[in-house]
């Protein structure tokens, strides 16, 4: 679409945060009726740039032109009024309110009294138009992630958005749901909408986008590259700045004795609804078992049940033969279960404490870190410095507050802490989420090294490529149940996708 009229032009955008230049004189050119992918690693500045466009941030310098007119956005309201709607990576929906209420939020109509049934009808009509169905009276917390995304899209369409900005929309979808989303996007483009598609997933970008703009470290390395012709290698190089190798060196599997045996456990989630139903899985020493599933199907609860952070209502969690189900997290730690949690800052670290204090979180009870009741500071300092060097954690000193570490360095610190305790079982949940390529490689290297040392590893990840690369066996999870198992050799994206979407392995072949 090179000759289509311009929908949005961003020129010379500069955006700074304390300590980092997020956007460095970035130009972005969106034409009408196209799907334009914005590609870059985590931390490259894509979300920042689009947040500027959506009116959430004010740029230090630069101009924005919408349909030929220069605009200044004082707030998200102005951007929406100009026809730009952003669908964030973490949905901006109020969980306790209904679909309709969320869609109406922030609007001037209804003026005072809300007549919800009328708006319910309006929204149903809108849904018909675009083929996006979701019950207007449902409360957000009751909806699946895919349905919530539909609400976000409807929210913007209801406001007359002509340009939709989608930030990593496929992170939370099964492969099938991704296909459905792409169908929706194509039909919207046919109706004249323009779409900005932020992603770091090269296959998807090539599948859906007309053209690609690549950001690296806040700067544009390539603009409006036609998507059809580009190869994965080319795009990856533009993203990272060097040649990216897509395969990882992995020694053949040599599994040892049984370390973890989860036997038919049941567990509830925070809302009291069943999250795990009779789930079983086994992990041996020296192997990586990957769990593939869309967020919200029980993975988090599984990791928590194994590490003592969540109650189980039936079944057993046997670690080296001992049932640790419903025991305290302290027990799991004592039995050498390492846990790299999903939530780095909310659970895995203490932002206000120093790096050194974070590194002793699991080991502070034993000597030599503590002598009786007293902490042994010199030993703590020494060990912290050793770990800092060994894991290449970039921080000025070990006394710096953990909140100042970048995502990658914080994750390295968490890994350092967990690995240095000499674990027998590692439960790693989304270990590379939000990290740049360098950090991702580092994390994966650590996991493979542990695998070679004979540690049993349970890897839970939403990045299917990562699971296919690292895991020896792949188990699908759907609605809290084990959907079957594939070995690394025989797994394909389609097969895994089927398991994630609820088709039990073996059922599809029976249907032929």
């Amino acid at each position, binding site marked *: 679409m090179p000759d289509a009229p311009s929908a949005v032009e961003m020129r010379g955008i500069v955006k700074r*945060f304390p300590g980092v230049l997020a956007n460095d004189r970035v130009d972005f050119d969106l034409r009408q009726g196209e799907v334009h992918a914005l590609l870059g690693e985590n931390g490259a500045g894509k979300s920042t740039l689009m*947040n500027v466009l*959506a*009116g*959430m*941030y004010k740029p230090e310098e630069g101009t924005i032109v919408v349909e030929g007119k220069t605009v200044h956005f004082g*707030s*998200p*309201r*102005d951007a*929406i009024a100009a026809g730009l709607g*952003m669908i*964030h990576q973490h949905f*901006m*929906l*109020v*969980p*306790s*309110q209904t679909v309709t*209420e*969320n869609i*109406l*939020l*922030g*609007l001037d109509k*209804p*003026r*005072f*009294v*809300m007549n919800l049934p009328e708006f319910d009808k309006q929204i149903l009509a809108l849904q018909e138009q675009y083929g996006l169905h979701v019950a207007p009276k449902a409360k957000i917390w009751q909806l699946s992630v895919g349905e919530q995304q539909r609400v976000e899209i409807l*929210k913007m369409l209801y406001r007359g958005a002509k340009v939709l900005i989608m930030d990593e929309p496929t992170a939370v979808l099964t492969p099938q749901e991704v296909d459905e989303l792409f169908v929706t996007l194509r039909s919207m483009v046919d109706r004249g909408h323009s779409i900005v598609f932020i992603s770091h997933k090269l296959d998807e970008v090539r599948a859906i986008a007309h053209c690609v703009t690549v950001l690296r470290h806040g700067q544009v390395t390539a603009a409006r590259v036609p998507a059809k012709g580009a190869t994965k290698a080319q795009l990856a190089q533009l993203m990272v700045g060097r040649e990216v190798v897509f395969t990882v060196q992995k020694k053949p599997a040599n599994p040892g004795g049984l370390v973890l045996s989860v036997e038919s456990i049941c567990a509830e989630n*925070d*809302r*009291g609804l069943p999250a795990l139903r009779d789930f079983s899985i086994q992990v041996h020493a020296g192997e990586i078992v990957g769990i593939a599933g869309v967020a919200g199907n029980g993975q988090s609860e599984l990791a928590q049940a194994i590490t003592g952070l969540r109650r189980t209502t039936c079944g057993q969690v046997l670690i080296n033969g001992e049932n640790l189900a419903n025991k305290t997290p302290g027990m799991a730690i004592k039995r050498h279960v390492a846990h790299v949690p999903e939530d*780095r*800052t909310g659970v895995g670290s203490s932002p206000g404490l120093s790096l050194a204090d974070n590194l002793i979180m699991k080991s502070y009870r034993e000597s030599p870190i503590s002598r009786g009741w007293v902490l042994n500071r010199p030993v703590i300092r020494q060990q912290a410095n050793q770990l800092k060097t060994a894991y290449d954690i970039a921080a000025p000193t070990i006394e710096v507050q953990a*909140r100042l*570490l*970048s*995502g990658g360095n*914080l994750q390295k610190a968490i890994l350092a802490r967990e690995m240095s305790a000499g674990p027998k079982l590692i439960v790693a949940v989304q270990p590379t989420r*939000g990290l740049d390529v360098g950090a991702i490689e580092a994390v994966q290297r650590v996991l493979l090294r542990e695998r070679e040392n004979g540690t049993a590893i349970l890897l839970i990840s939403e990045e299917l490529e990562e699971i296919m690369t690292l895991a020896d066996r792949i188990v699908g999870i759907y609605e809290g149940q084990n959907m079957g198992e594939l070995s690394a050799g025989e797994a394909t994206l389609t097969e895994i996708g089927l398991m994630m979407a609820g088709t039990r392995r073996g059922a599809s072949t029976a249907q032929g």
Partner: protein
Amino acid sequence: MINWILILQAGVATGTVLLFATIGELLAERSGVLNLGIEGMMLIGAMIAYRTAVTTGNAWLGVLTGMLAGGALSLLHALVCVSFQADQVVSGLAVNFLGVGLSLVLGEGLSKAGAIALLPVVTVPVLSSIPFLGPILFTNQSVLVYIGYLLVPAVWFYIGRTRPGLHLRAVGEYPAAADALGINVYRLRYLYVFAGGLLAGLAGATISLAVSPGWFSELTTGGQGWIAVGLVIFAQWDPWRAMGGAYMFGALRRLILDLQAPKLLLGLANPFFYMPQLGFFLKMLPYALVIVILFIGSREAMKKRIGAPAALGLPYVRGERGL
């Protein structure tokens, strides 16, 4: 002989004080801001209201200035919590001390109990004839009590059925969503904290101009501001439950005062008359009861998995760069 009708009637009047304070706090908390300074705002509202009424002879002016005094103090709290993002608990305490201290200093020399122009006391013609409820609710009650009756359904309707109410709820539950859609989270929080302050000031004015006219320094409020904080939790942030709790406590306070007077209680010798030292335990009762209802409220919240507005107590900062 205990006159239950009179006790309940006085209880409604006393309860109105708690009602205003509780509803005010409910609004502030619904928007996500915890305001622990109610006691101080009530006290300064009471003092200013009384002083104005004594000086000008106009009780309504007293009510107005009392409300504004409470509101002004609450703006300080809003400034520190919303704009400066300080910890809301400590800020509330600071504002509380400030309010108490200021009202003691500025209330120096104020006449203790006075014959001043009180607010009109009204008996509603038809409604006061309803058996049992009539004499309690609609007879010889100050105008402020009737305002209380109207306030609760109005607030309930506002929060649940209007667009501004929708915005209020969103700001308290998930301010990021509201912000992304152009709702000014900061402005709304200021607004509702201010509303809470106005109502706290009104509660204070109700004490010094209607329920127990006069200025008795700290004894004027006697901890009712704190009881209001507890009541909001007990009410699970619902105006109707707040009303029930407020009147119940009002009746209890009244009952405690009257329990020690008669020689006979329910036909038996009244222990509180013959052993006046037991009176101290009676005085402890409202405070112990608050602990009990907090306990009940927390258990309920745990069971039903409902609870405080999700963003309560957390300062909102747009665009925090997470790790």
